[in-house]
Structure formats: C-alpha cells, structure tokens
C-alpha cells in the first residue's frame, strides 16, 4: 500500500491562503493525520484552505467525513475549505456521497485561490464596453453580461434576470437615443459576490425629449395589454431590480440598476 503524504504551504498567488497538498490513498488509516494537520491550521490565522487533491488516488467515505469535519471547524473561524484538482474517480466518490454539494470543487489551485479573492476579500470586478447605437449589437452584449454573472456563480435564474435587465435597457437606449452616425451606447458593470451594478447610457435624441420627460408613466407598471404596441421594458427592469434610477440631462440618459445576488 502506498503511503499517504500531507503537506502545508502558503499560496504563491496569495500568502493569506493555506494550501494543503494531499498525496496517496486516503483510507481509514489517514484520518488521524488529516485531523492533526487541520487542527494546526485552525489554530492559526490563515483559515482559508485549498486542498490540492491532485495526488490523491483513493478517497474513503470516512476520509470525506473527516474533511467535512475539518471544514466545519474552519467555518467556525470564518474560514473555508475548498477542494481542487481531483482525479475523476475521486470526484465520483465525492459525488456518490453527495459531498460535492457541500464542498466547492475547482479544477486547479489558481481557480480556488480566485474564490478567496472573490468571496473573502469582496473583490469587485468591472467591465465597461461601448457599442454602436444599433439593435443588432444588443444580443451579444446581454449574453456577455449574463455569462459574466454565471462565471461569478450567480444562479442561472439571477443570470437570466440580469440578461433581461441589460437587454431591455439597451433596447431603450438604442430606440430612444440619438441615431446620428457614430453615436454609441455605453455599458458599465461592477460585480461582486453580493450584487451587480449596471449603468447604461446613451446620447439623447432631441425629438424624443418628451418621452423622457414622461418616463415615470412607463415605470408605473410592467403590465401589458392586448392594445399595447410596445412592451413595458423599463417597468419590467424595475421589477427585476433591487434599485433603479434614471438620470436625464440635455446630453443623454443613464439608467442605473442594482441587482442583489440570490443566495
């Protein structure tokens, strides 16, 4: 039987993250060693732990239970234990025990460390883009923002709502904005683990100033009727958002939306 090896180090990318490298077969005989290692970590300051499982060839159900216990101890100290680089057969064991619903599993150490920045350092990521004021660009823009939300572990339902919000505001920005050649729509997104903030702005079309003055009429209710020629896009956005604001000026309109992440 191959020996079991466990080693603690700190992440090169982020020294605040502890890396636990595990190698060999994690059977019943390894539980004591795992417990001792994690007890040492729990007593320290660096309680965000990435278990690098790339060297693990076998994982017993008892070992999975022990890792769960270690994770609980880390959570009690506001830390976390995530797993990465699992071999297929090891991942299958985890899945069979439904433990994949408890542990966050990543492809590699770097992806797991990124989670630390995201979840624990409240890192905000920003995306800004500008596109010509034409409807044909809107699908690509809305799908990009949805994919960013999905990548940041927003639920698929939340990501769909975000896609709808971006789509409806961009459509309005194109429809009611200036059609002069060279005019553009600007999209800014700031996303963190708690919320996404979206700002979409255009250049005003002088002929549509009256619509903007009466914008509150379009926000009162998203309800549609058989007689409506147009949808109720902005009112729909308001319903899907946690915060919604429109800034009008002589030169343009900017719609600000905040959507809180669904846990």
């Amino acid at each position: 039987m191959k020996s079991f090896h466990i080693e603690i180090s700190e992440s090169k990318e982020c020294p605040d993250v502890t890396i636990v490298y595990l190698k060999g077969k994690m059977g019943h005989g390894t539980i004591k060693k795992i417990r001792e290692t994690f007890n040492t970590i729990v007593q320290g300051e660096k309680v965000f732990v990435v278990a690098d499982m790339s060297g693990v060839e076998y994982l017993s159900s008892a070992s999975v239970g022990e890792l769960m216990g270690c994770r609980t101890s880390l959570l009690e100290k506001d830390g976390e234990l995530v797993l990465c680089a699992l071999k297929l057969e090891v991942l299958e064991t985890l899945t069979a025990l439904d433990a994949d619903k408890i542990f966050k599993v990543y492809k590699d150490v770097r992806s797991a460390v990124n989670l630390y920045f995201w979840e624990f350092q409240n890192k905000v990521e920003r995306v800004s883009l500008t596109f010509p004021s034409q409807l044909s660009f809107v699908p690509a823009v809305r799908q990009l923002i949805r994919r960013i939300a999905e990548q940041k572990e927003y639920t698929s339902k939340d990501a769909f709502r975000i896609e709808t919000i971006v789509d409806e505001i961009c459509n309005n920005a194109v429809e009611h904005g200036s059609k002069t050649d060279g005019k553009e729509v600007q999209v800014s997104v700031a996303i963190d683990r708690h919320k996404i903030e979206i700002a979409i702005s255009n250049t005003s079309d002088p002929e549509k100033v009256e619509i903007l003055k009466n914008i509150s009429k379009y926000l009162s209710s998203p309800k549609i009727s058989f007689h409506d020629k147009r949808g109720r896009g902005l009112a729909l956005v308001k319903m899907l958002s946690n915060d919604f604001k429109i800034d009008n000026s002589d030169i343009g309109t900017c719609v600000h939306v905040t959507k809180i992440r669904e846990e």
Partner: protein
Amino acid sequence: MKSQIELKYEDIKDKTGAKIVRFVGDLDATNVESVVEEIFGLLNQGTLNIIADFEKLRYVNSTGLGILLHFSKSAKERGGCFKIANVNENVYEIIEIIGATTLLDLYDDLDEAIKSI
C-alpha cells in the same frame, strides 16, 4: 447579428388547420419581424390553430411578449387560437411579471394544449 431563432412546423394528427410550431432559440427585438412574417404566413394560409412549443425557447423579452399577445389576439379574431406549451421557468417569470399569464393561453405540455383545440 440577429439573435438566432428557428421555427419548426409539425402537423397535428386528426386536427386540420392546426400545427405545432416549435420555437428554438431567443425571441427578442432583433428577430420579431421574421417571426411575425412566419406566423402570419401560417394564419394567412388557413392554419388558424397554432400551438407554440416553447421547450427550446431559451429567452424572450418584452418586445417578444408583445408579439405573442398580437398572435393570440389575431388568431382569436380569425376564429382560431394561439396556445403556448412547455414554457421554461425563466421565461415564465417574465410572462408573469408582464401580467400576460391571463392574456396568453399557457399549457404545461403539448398533449394538454392539443386536447384543448
């Protein structure tokens, strides 16, 4: 760069003047016109009872919902119907917020929609 949408047609056994139309893709402001052309093409050719299968319709926005209401109204005015089956959870939420659940004929599945015509 329109969104991709494809409409696939299927006759309904023992139901003349009726068709299933399967919507595949996204329905939005960039492709509503082509969908309007296709559905009105069917209505104008005498297919007055249409069952829209939304199983593979991933996305719809307020503009798309507007034309669905238009189809429903137009089919009814001609003595037919425009019924919708298999709406996914995300699309259903948008239909609900827009207040169109009472205006559109929605069914959980195709069999239920077919039985109703």
